[in-house]
């Protein structure tokens, strides 16, 4: 079991600690509370430069300071309650404090009384992978002939790689995950001019990886956070130093801060479909334009209009009302792209210190209007590497070559 420090403020009162404990045990994590003396609390507050009104938050800071003295702790889970203003301040302070002093992976979560189990599972599983598979994640080149499959919630992707080059790709919307994967594998093999028997190893990642992994008898099955970070580094050939990876897929999004191609802090979206590719798909349908042309249409926009809601349903309603009021299609397309970029910014990016270069991957990275909106928002150029929609598949194809 891997020891991970739970640094929290009495979130046990939220009534969901048992869920954290169960999931942690399932993914091989032993959640521990770093030991500290009450007398250390004041010193810890001084060190972090903040004293909270809530004694438990002060204790949380002391646990963070104490954690640094325990070499057996390999990761940190920061917890406060959702909507607690003071808790959010302290959680952010602690994250920054730890980040400046240690390289261990850190994740944070805001407790609610009825959480989605999958949200907690995805975070803890990614944390476990980053700790236990570090040597595998250090791989920077693909060797031999391997296949990577990314069974996403919206689309299924496959790549065939040979000696560090992509030689075949396959992509299609996910219906029955097993049927979809059979079809993309066939397309990728055909593109590569290879047969299934030529493939030396198969890796799977993505939402449907358990089912698909069993179906294709995968040699490696890894969660998306570590794989996407690796894929982004491979596609851009930026293996050294810091980077920020934005991944927006069909149904969810991720913001990952990585160091040397390995994720170490990340934030997962999923509050609302309004910040996903699905929103842009529905918007394209309303604008009677193919999703692949939406970004180009948005770039023609000359007048700024904002949609009145980020919510998937009300966002589309706002889009329809905007169209009906006579606003040009290109301005509405740009507003839809801005809406997605804004939501990702407000819910995820602004909580983290973005480290350049910024690499944008996932299906939505192909919609140029969204890239443009991110660049305006962040004031820096964003890299969209070739084959950015295959980041997950490339990442896992490379990693499986090291198994």
């Amino acid at each position, binding site marked *: 079991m891997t020891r991970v420090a739970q640094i929290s403020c009495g979130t*046990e009162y939220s009534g969901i*600690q*048992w869920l954290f404990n169960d999931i942690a045990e399932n993914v091989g994590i032993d959640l521990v509370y770093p030991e500290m003396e009450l007398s250390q609390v004041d010193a810890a507050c001084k060190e972090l430069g903040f004293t*909270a009104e*809530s004694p438990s938050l002060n*204790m949380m800071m002391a646990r963070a300071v104490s954690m640094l003295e325990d070499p057996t702790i390999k990761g940190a889970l920061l917890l406060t309650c959702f909507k*607690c203003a*003071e808790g959010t301040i302290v959680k952010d302070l602690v994250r920054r404090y730890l980040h400046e002093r240690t390289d261990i992976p850190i994740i944070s979560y805001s407790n609610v009384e009825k959480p989605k189990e999958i949200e907690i599972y995805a975070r803890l599983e990614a944390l476990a992978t980053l700790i236990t598979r570090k040597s595998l994640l250090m791989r920077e080149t693909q060797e031999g002939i391997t296949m990577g499959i990314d069974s996403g919630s919206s689309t299924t992707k496959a790549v065939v790689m040979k000696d560090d080059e992509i030689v075949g790709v396959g992509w299609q919307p996910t219906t029955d995950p097993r049927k979809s994967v059979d079809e993309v594998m066939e397309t990728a093999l055909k593109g590569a001019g290879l047969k299934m028997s030529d493939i030396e190893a198969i890796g799977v990642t993505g939402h449907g990886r358990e089912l698909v992994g069993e179906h294709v008898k995968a040699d490696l099955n890894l969660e998306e956070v570590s794989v996407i970070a690796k894929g982004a580094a491979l596609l851009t050939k930026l293996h050294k130093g810091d980077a920020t990876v934005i991944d927006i897929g069909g149904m969810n999004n991720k913001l990952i801060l990585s160091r040397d191609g390995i994720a170490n802090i990340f934030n997962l979206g999923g509050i609302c479909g309004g910040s996903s590719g699905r929103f842009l798909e529905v918007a394209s349908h309303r604008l009677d334009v193919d999703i692949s042309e939406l970004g180009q249409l948005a770039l023609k926009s000359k007048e700024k209009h904002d949609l009145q809601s980020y919510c998937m349903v009300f966002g589309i309603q706002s889009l329809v009302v905007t169209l009906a009021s006579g606003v040009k299609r290109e301005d509405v397309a740009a507003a839809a792209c801005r809406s997605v970029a804004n939501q990702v910014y407000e819910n995820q990016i602004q909580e983290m210190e973005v480290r350049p270069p910024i690499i944008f991957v996932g299906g939505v990275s192909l919609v140029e209007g969204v890239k443009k909106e991110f660049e305006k928002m962040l004031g820096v150029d964003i890299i969209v590497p070739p084959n950015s929609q295959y980041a997950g598949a490339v990442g896992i194809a490379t990693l499986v070559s090291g198994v």
Partner: protein
Amino acid sequence: MKVLVYPPNSLILTDLVERGGHEAVVLMREIGEHVRDAEIDAPPLNVTEEDLKRALRYVSVEEPAGLKGRIGLLVPLLEKAEAAVILSDAPPTYGCMGCAVADEFFKFLIRKKGIPTLEVKYEGGEKLEVAVEEIMAFLARLSQEGKATKSEKKG
């Protein structure tokens, strides 16, 4: 009388209340019952969805989950209490609510209940002795009032 102590896990106040001849209403008992209840399986505190729902009688659904959990556990104490002793601004070693908003809000609920309540400020040093005297005097008054009420009822 059933005297609620606040902070609700203060061992020192619990001891004083018992020395004063009353029954202390404390959080440890409530949590103890939860933890020992074999029917509930939500470690470590066994705070359940029911506890959080119970809190909704007093707090808005928009409040953070941890605040609801705390208030939910404390509500039975509040409903049981016939009197209260509140020690404010004490160091965490004197017992602690942990969450500042839950702390403020629960003190407000005690005051709103309208039961005999003594509020003492922790000032440390020799002033602590004065505070203890005040608490003991309050508890003695409660005993006398209790006796008077009983004899009124008998009469």
